[in-house]
């Protein structure tokens, strides 16, 4: 019996195994295609929903960050001494980082930059924006303490004393964590459904090929080699499905998001490019891992 050296048998062996995988797969091309489309549809739905959730939660996170900036509005008739007294009073409160004075002119200038206020700032004759004390909060709970001090002070605007009520801040952060939970939840559910679809295919494949797998085990084929076509099929499904999902994602990002941004500017979805790239890579990696793992769960006979 003649043997070949390791340097030649290894590449030749890879060739044999690939040829074997190809032969297994060739007969199942149509079923594979249908399953790939199903997996792709599930993943597409999921990434589309996730794109909006990611963009919305990013916008919310930005708003929450600016919400740690809390304003105490001053009445137009407030004296400078009253204002500085209120300022030092607020500075002494626990949970307050810093306090600074913002004049009416500064408030108008800022409003001109803000997409939602710009129109109002443009067409108004006399400046409607009040002077304020801008309070940086270290702890959102401090907002209620600041409000308590502010409402009693004669320098504050009696109608709208502060920029938001503490309850609104809590609601914002609650909504933010809900949105983040939804992103993770949808991702997990989509992966679950996609794996289910793929596992049904893989199981049907294993069932159809059970006699063959048993014979290959009987003649001493290494188990890894026997599993390889199934593993390759699972991974190719994951890659094809993710590719479809990425196409959907780029269509959403380049067509739908700009439309939403122009019609509903208050949603402030922003630029989706980074989120799209991240979502595609995550979808690809997680679906390959999940489907690959599922294919390895299939039992072979002894």
């Amino acid at each position, binding site marked *: 019996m003649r043997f070949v050296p390791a340097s030649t048998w290894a590449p030749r062996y890879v060739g044999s195994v690939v040829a074997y995988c190809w032969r297994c797969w060739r007969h199942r091309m149509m079923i594979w295609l249908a399953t790939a489309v199903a997996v792709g549809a599930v993943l597409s739905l999921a990434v589309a929903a996730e794109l909006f959730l990611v963009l919305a939660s990013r916008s919310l996170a930005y708003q929450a960050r600016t919400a740690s900036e809390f304003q105490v509005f001053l009445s137009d008739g407030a004296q400078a001494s009253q204002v500085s007294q209120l300022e030092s009073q607020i500075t002494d409160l626990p949970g307050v980082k810093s306090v600074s004075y913002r004049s009416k002119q500064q408030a108008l200038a800022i409003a001109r930059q803000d997409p939602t206020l710009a129109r109002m700032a443009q067409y108004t004759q006399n400046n409607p924006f009040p002077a304020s004390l801008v309070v940086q909060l270290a702890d959102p709970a401090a907002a209620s303490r600041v409000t308590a001090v502010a409402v009693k002070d004669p320098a504050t605007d009696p109608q709208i004393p502060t920029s938001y009520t503490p309850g609104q801040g809590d609601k914002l952060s609650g909504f933010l964590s809900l949105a983040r939970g939804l992103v993770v939840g949808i991702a997990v559910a989509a992966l679950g459904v996609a794996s289910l679809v793929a596992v049904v295919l893989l199981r049907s494949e294993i069932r159809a090929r059970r006699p063959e797998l048993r014979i290959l085990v009987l003649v001493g084929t290494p*188990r890894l080699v026997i599993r390889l076509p199934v593993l390759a099929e699972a991974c190719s499904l994951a890659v094809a499905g993710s590719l479809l999902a990425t196409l959907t994602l780029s269509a959403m990002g380049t067509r739908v998001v700009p439309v939403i941004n122009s019609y509903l500017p208050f949603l402030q979805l922003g630029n989706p490019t980074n989120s799209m790239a991240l979502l595609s890579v995550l979808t690809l990696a997680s679906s390959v891992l999940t489907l690959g793992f599922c294919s390895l769960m299939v039992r072979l006979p002894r």
Partner: protein
Amino acid sequence: MPELARRFGGWYRKLGVPAPGSIQLRNVTAGYGGINVFSDLALDVRPGEFVYLVGPSGAGKSTLLKVLYGTVRPRRGSVFVDGVAVHRLHSWQTGKIRRRVGCIFQEFELLAHLTALENVLLPLQLAHPRIHDPQAYALDALELVGLKDKANEYPQTLSGGQQQRVAIARAIAHQPRILLADEPTGNVDSRTSSEIMELFHQLNELGGTVVMATHDEYVLSRFPARTIELQPGLLEAA
């Protein structure tokens, strides 16, 4: 040299590993589900020996062969085949023994969607990647069993005896030291069965160990060899 041989002999004894080409069973109990097919079986087959396993249907001939190639894991006892401790193999390691021995199964176990040649070739390619020219080995094996002209036919177009011979070609293509055959003459006429037995005896004369289950009286009388009789009714609750 004697010193080296002495040292190696001592080494084998110390490990308790029987020599390559031999089969050794000690206190082997095996069965399925709630029953034992045989218990406390002991068997020694020396390298190069020819052994028949005989006994009526259901006596456990196939089960004993399955213990030897690792499909049935014994409940107790030790099984050494070609120096491999088969009783210790986990299900993912059974390929280790099957690549060393040649197996002919009672139900042929041919792949229906592959031709005769591919049936012999695929195991060579996937399980014996270091063999130099697998195609030539597969064709040689088919020629030995007289089926070279049927190399490109599919199993369903072959007769039972021809399928049997493809299975034999697959078992001997990698030139194993031990051949385990389960009723290899069960489906063939007396002429073909003589040819098959002559082939087995040739392999045996070249130094191969053969263990063959049969209840073919013709074969037993024409090709006498050591015979081990398995008794039915040894079946007992596990």
